[in-house]
């Protein structure tokens, strides 16, 4: 994999190096996301606007700061949350196929959102509230199904999540089959994940809710490493194997739910970004948590940029791009690492 042994460097330096690298990538992506779009402009004008000379180009300034900035910020937050969510669930359930929606969140929030859309509600707060309520309800249901007297077994959790999601999927199909008007388009966009509903206020609220979650997960990075060794061994190394998995599960599910209720079911980012970053930087979660936040953010900003600039008219759901770009990239890296 790597020529140099990871143990040769102290962990702090490695965290710093990876964060700087991916932070730089994030800044470049954000710059691209702010400067490119459907309206005509040249790079000098953009730089002037970004430098704060708004008065020279009032229209462009308004586009950059009022439309593109909240969207780039939303893409960053969503990309970070979903990558981190996938990382935590893959570690917690020790299952490489785990993704942020595995606790039934996708099914529950989708049913909630579709009901909201069918009731003719506005995307925010109406549909978002219904989606959040739906995901919390399925999460509770999954926890209830999976919990026994002794403890929660990870296989039972996965199965319960998959079953609840499958049940919800049939409800979703049923609701879609009943819908024939323009609301169908809204439903399909929601199911594929859509960042176009962003506004500044909403995005800032999301940020305030997400940053504490990121912090908690970063603090639990070392216990997450040790949990990989198996529950029994983790317990013997002083990790609270009841409390810490529960905190990880609840914090992650909560942050994924509040993101999903704003943007719909953005697939693939949460499944593959953790694997991709693990292939690049190794298995240490103290490294992977910041890497997922920064790398996931940068990745979704770039995918969103493609989603809104590729079609000559309108835009496509960003969920289409995430897998179309990400899957081949991942397969390439996987084959490289096997050689």
């Amino acid at each position, binding site marked *: 994999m790597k020529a140099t042994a990871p143990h040769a460097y102290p962990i*702090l330096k490695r965290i710093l190096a990876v964060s700087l690298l991916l932070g730089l990538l994030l800044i470049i992506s954000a710059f691209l996301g702010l400067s490119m779009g459907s309206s005509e402009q040249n790079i000098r004008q953009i730089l002037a606007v970004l430098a704060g000379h708004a008065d020279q180009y009032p229209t462009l300034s308004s586009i950059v700061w009022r439309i593109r900035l909240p969207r780039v910020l939303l893409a960053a937050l969503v990309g970070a949350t979903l990558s981190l969510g996938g990382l935590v669930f893959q570690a917690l359930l020790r299952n490489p196929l785990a993704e942020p929606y595995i606790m039934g969140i996708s099914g529950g929030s989708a049913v909630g959102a579709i009901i909201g859309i069918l009731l003719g509600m506005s995307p925010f707060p109406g549909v978002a509230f219904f989606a959040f309520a739906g995901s919390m309800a399925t999460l509770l249901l999954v926890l209830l199904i999976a919990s026994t007297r002794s403890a929660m077994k990870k296989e039972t959790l996965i199965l319960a999540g998959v079953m609840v999601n499958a049940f919800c999927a049939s409800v979703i199909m049923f609701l879609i089959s009943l819908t024939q008007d323009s609301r169908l388009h809204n439903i399909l966009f929601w199911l594929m994940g859509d960042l176009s509903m962003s506004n500044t206020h909403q995005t800032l609220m999301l940020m305030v809710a997400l940053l504490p979650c990121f912090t908690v997960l970063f603090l639990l990075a070392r216990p997450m490493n040790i949990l990989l060794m198996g529950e029994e061994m983790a317990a*013997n190394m*002083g990790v609270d194997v009841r409390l810490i998995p529960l905190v990880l599960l609840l914090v992650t599910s909560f942050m994924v739910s509040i993101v999903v209720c704003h943007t719909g079911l953005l697939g693939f980012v949460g499944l593959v970004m953790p694997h991709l970053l693990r292939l690049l930087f190794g*298995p240490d979660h103290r490294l992977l948590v910041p890497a997922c936040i920064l790398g996931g953010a940068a990745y979704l900003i770039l995918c969103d940029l493609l989603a809104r600039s590729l079609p000559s008219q309108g835009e496509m759901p960003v969920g289409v791009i995430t897998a179309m770009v990400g899957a081949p990239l991942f397969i390439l890296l996987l084959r490289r690492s096997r050689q």
Partner: protein
Amino acid sequence: MKTALAVKDLSHSYGRRSVLNAVSFSVQEGEFFIIIGPNGSGKTTLVRTISGSLRPQRGQTEILGCPIGSYSGKALARSVAVVTQTPPADIPFTVAEVVLMGRSPHLSLLAVEKRKDLQLAERAMSFTNVQHLAGRRLDQLSAGERQRVFVARAICQQPRIIVLDEPTASLDLAHQIHVMDLLERLRMDEKITIIMVSHDLNLAAMYADRLLLLKAGGVVSLGKPEEVLTFQTLERAYGCVLLVDENPVKKVPRVTLVPNSIMQAGFRSLTGQ
């Protein structure tokens, strides 16, 4: 000499099946203590109660004079390190990273490993002779190497007691003796109490100060190898005939299995037992 571990009247059952039945014994500090017994005799359950993984339904366990319940998870991990029967094999961490994890009960949530922790890990790795593997990933090692890595991880934890559940079970002869010698040295040099479960009666006899023989969750015999490993006691515990004579390399009992065909050919009259 102080008591490292005191077990009093320990009982536990899984559902209706009783696995430990009023087990009592104590282990002195610096002792090499080996638990033997047939399959299903409760050895692993006993180890799990000592490591704090299992809370027994009845009885008390005291570690270094304090009830096990009075320890926090981290405090217990600073006193007792455990090497489980089947350590994880498919973890992509490097050997150095795994060994360094042993420092975690000594670190607060935010702390990172300091130079001292790295030195302790280096020392533990050289002690178990895995320092040349430091940069290798755990899933690229042989079973014997991996077992030594987990022993190094336990040493790095700086415990007073190390508990091992059949550490030599999957190892070839050279690695078996290597791990046992290593534990012996730990006991001598670092005064660490060694408590281990073993199926290998001959290895147990050569290294243990005392043996505990369990059967069906109860204590059959407890004492020095020559007191426990007698023909009568073993036949009672294992339900098969074993030949016991003196080990040619050390003045301890040696146990030999007797195939049925030889039994039928008049083994009893041959040996006089």
